[in-house]
């Protein structure tokens, strides 16, 4: 079974780096990837997590005070 993913969109690259650190500290596997073209025309990066981890990721980021722009399945 191939894994399904979601991406967490944040304000900027700095925010994505911070998000990645918060998620790693919370033990949630994640990877920084370019924002998929069909989601946003922005030139930045976002953080990809497994779809099963989305709720835990959202909680961890909110607890760290990091604003989430959007979470989308890919």
């Amino acid at each position, binding site marked *: 079974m191939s894994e399904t993913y979601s991406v967490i969109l944040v304000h*900027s690259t*700095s925010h994505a780096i911070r998000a990645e650190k918060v998620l790693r500290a919370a033990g949630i596997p994640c990877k920084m990837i370019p924002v998929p073209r069909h989601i946003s025309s922005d030139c930045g990066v976002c953080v990809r997590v497994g779809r099963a981890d989305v709720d835990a990721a959202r909680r961890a980021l909110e607890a760290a005070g990091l604003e989430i722009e959007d979470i989308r399945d890919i």
Partner: protein
Amino acid sequence: MIYFDNAATSWPKPPQVAEAMMHFLRDVGANPGRSAHRTAVESGRIVYAAREAVCELVNAPDPLRVAFTANVTVALNMALWGLLRPGDHVITSSMEHNSVMRPLRALERKGVELTVVRCSPEGFLNPADVQAAIRPNTRMIVLNHASNVAGTILPVREVGHIAHAHNLLLLVDAAQTAGAYPIDVQADGIDLLAFTGHKSLLGPMGTGGLVLGPRVDVSRMEPLIRGGTGSRSEREEQPDFLPDMLESGTPNAVGIAGLEAGIRWVLERGVEAIRAHEMALAQRAIDGLRAIPGVTVYGPLDAARQTATVSFNIAGMEPSEAGLRLDEEHGILCRVGLHCAPAAHKTLGTFPVGTVRFGMGVFNTADEVDAAVAAVEALAREARR
């Protein structure tokens, strides 16, 4: 050669600083926060690591509330022009550098009210005088953490308590203290900390920044510069979030890589240990210089109340001549004159002649202090004839 101009720019730098910059130029190179390929992300990580290093040094909680700038002057202008409006009142001290005084004088012409609280002839600020200057429309207190002329340390924490009790913002110019004297933005009550990278943080020129505390409402802040940030590229309005809001244009990422290495070096050595070393040098210089007939030393004359910056004059010799002869005859490099701070010189009684300034740093030694004192003694002896 004895380098005693660390108050202007520190030198030498730890080797790790040049190595980090070489690594960036040779192996990374890409624009941070603009593209999404691997070296762009690596570049972004390097800049982010520097934000974390700044936070660790000054006990700031949020790396995203560190905005990098070209130097402390830009950071100070960013805070002053960004937050003060006509009709607001701002309080500062008479020991400020022109990087605070000139923007404040310009803002005054635009309708901002300004009170300059007078300090003692040693440069000391009485917090009660700040308290007494507060008006109903006071919005901010701006303070030089330590004088670049006489080294005098200003009572930031006491003023921080006053600022918070009156719901005012405290902006601190930490040019002379960041890396050389303990700073804790939370315990000190500093809402806006402006720092420069090329002094005691041991980084390269062209680096600095502004640390914004939680009490600063950025939705009420006007950016000094607007432009590309790599974020929100679909919009023609400036982003309203930090740090992007204050970081338009490609940053000095290679410099910031060096800055991070400098701060890491400071953290490893420990600010307390650096402070102890510099205090010993300062007291040695103060005592040595004061013992010379015809030499006047300015400021606290007490290393516990100042940084390792010591200003003095030799009777019968202009500072400019003393500086030239210290350089040419003794290989001692220091700064002479007014040090960009006319108000501070008026407070210390050294306007308009200025002073000779020994700016000692973490890499200086007691032997260098002794050699410099002996050189001043020789010049003073000649000037007495």
